[in-house]
């Protein structure tokens, strides 16, 4: 159910993003989705890749600070109001979204949104109960 996401600390100076993607490219790791949160001093880059273990190890080798987090990928109808219906379910069940970002590729006719929750298991249960499709962790990297 859960998807492994890696996050990378990036100082806000030129060329750092290019360096991260370069390191991953050299290691033949494919980036499937990403989001960047930033302040004036630093940024946090979150990535879903096709091989998290390899990505973690090559980034650590190059002295990047990295962490692993569990997120989930949710199928959202690719039509107006699609995301809203899912957020309403979460809201009605008092589940906080820490952050979320979109997957570039679609799953069939649906869009895919990556969600980060404080309590992943509870969120999964609520979503499933409400008939929302959660994409399998194994499958998501091969979309």
């Amino acid at each position: 159910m859960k998807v492994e996401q890696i996050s990378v600390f990036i100082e806000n100076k030129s060329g750092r993003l290019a360096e991260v993607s370069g390191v991953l490219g050299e290691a033949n790791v494919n980036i499937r989705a990403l989001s960047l949160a930033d302040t004036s001093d630093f940024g946090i880059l979150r990535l879903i890749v096709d091989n998290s273990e390899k990505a973690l190890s090559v980034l650590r080798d190059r002295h990047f600070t990295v962490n692993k987090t569990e997120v989930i990928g949710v199928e959202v109808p690719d039509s107006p109001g699609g995301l809203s219906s899912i957020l309403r379910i979460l809201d009605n069940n008092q589940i906080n979204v820490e952050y979320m970002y979109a997957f570039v590729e679609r799953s069939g006719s649906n869009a895919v949104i990556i969600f980060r929750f404080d309590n992943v298991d509870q969120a999964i249960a609520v979503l499933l109960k409400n008939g929302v499709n959660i994409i399998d962790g194994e499958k998501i990297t091969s979309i």
Partner: protein
Amino acid sequence: MHSESNLSTMSAHQFIWNSNAECMPREQIERLQLERLLQTLQLVSGNVPCYQNKFKDCGFQPGDLKSLDDIQDLPFTTKEDLRLNYPYGMFAVPMSDVVRIHSSSGTTGKPTVVGYTKQDISTWTELVARFMTAAGVTREDIVHIAFGYGLFTGAFGLHYGSEAIGASVIPISGGNTDKQIMIMQDYRSSALVCTPSYGLTIADRLEKKGIDPASLALRVGLFGAEPWSEQMRYELEGRLGIIATDNYGLSEIMGPGVAGDCLFKCGMHLAEDHFVFEIIDPDTGKVLPKGSRGELVITSLTKQAFPMIRYRTRDITRIHYDACECGRTLARMDKTSGRTDDMLIIKGVNVFPTQIEEVLLQIEGCQPHYQLIVDRVNNMDQLEVQVEVNEHIFFDEMKRQRQFVTEAEKRLATVLGVSAKVKLVEPSSIVRHEGKACRVIDKRKQ
């Protein structure tokens, strides 16, 4: 400079607060020093366990002191001794005789605590009145004290000195430069008391607001609490249209009043009737010949609550014994030119890198490499603490990451007494020399 032209026409003695003490013949000063030193040694060997132990360790008894030179046989007192005896272990009188507590930052988490008896406060008042008078302050002056009132000794010392002289005190305290300027304009402040860097901040603000310093009543500045250069003196004098004088003190010894400029500005006259001053080689601890540059060591001669024997100030300076044109016989010290330890003075506050280390260590999981960047932006000191992230203090959520930074900044401000910006940097980005990180980059010196 208008100070020089005025000097020729004024009687030097007009600006001496206590000519009996300040113009005493050299032999008489030394006789008085020996007599008072013996009393102080009796006091500490009877009442302060730290000194009892130190004296026992080196086999010294107060009666062994035959001449002033014998002071070299006494052990030093260091900031570490004060830390080990925190808070009141070095006091030589019962708390019932102590009327005031002040403190300054220590080398680690705990501050240094000092006490004063009634008599100590009155000595302090006298010594501040001396250097304020030497700077030309009289009962006609309106003294604008922009030092922070609180545990820091600066504001209270100058406050007492001004009142003793009979000047009018405006205890405005620090901060809010616009209000400071309004009060200077409206209340006609004539003597400014603050750190030299804050003096320049005021000059900047005046320029920005288009206020001509000549329209103010300011005529003299008494700057202290941080080291400053002759260059800065010219700048303060030129931009504020004042005579800028320096004074020296440290809370462990008394606070301001230990030494201060006369109007000839050729070194700060030392209060030798209340202290013995030595210059030592900081590495060997040996007393250096007169006139050498080295670390200043101070012994108090009249303090009751918190006597200090051979306190290592860590300040580097030189003492001049030749006659000064002002008529004072008291020797003079140069502006301090550095430290023998890694203490930084930021906005007048003593900061030790070890304090920052301790704060960072307290934050769970954090044993990071760090570096302090001290800079002066628009004449205000700024402290940035760069912290290398590691996996323990790195989060995928921005909220938690920022919380870490805010928490670190809050704790640093509490412990240091001065605000610091925390900047997270990538691992290995702090330059290391032979594996050791360079802890401090002080851009103010460049």
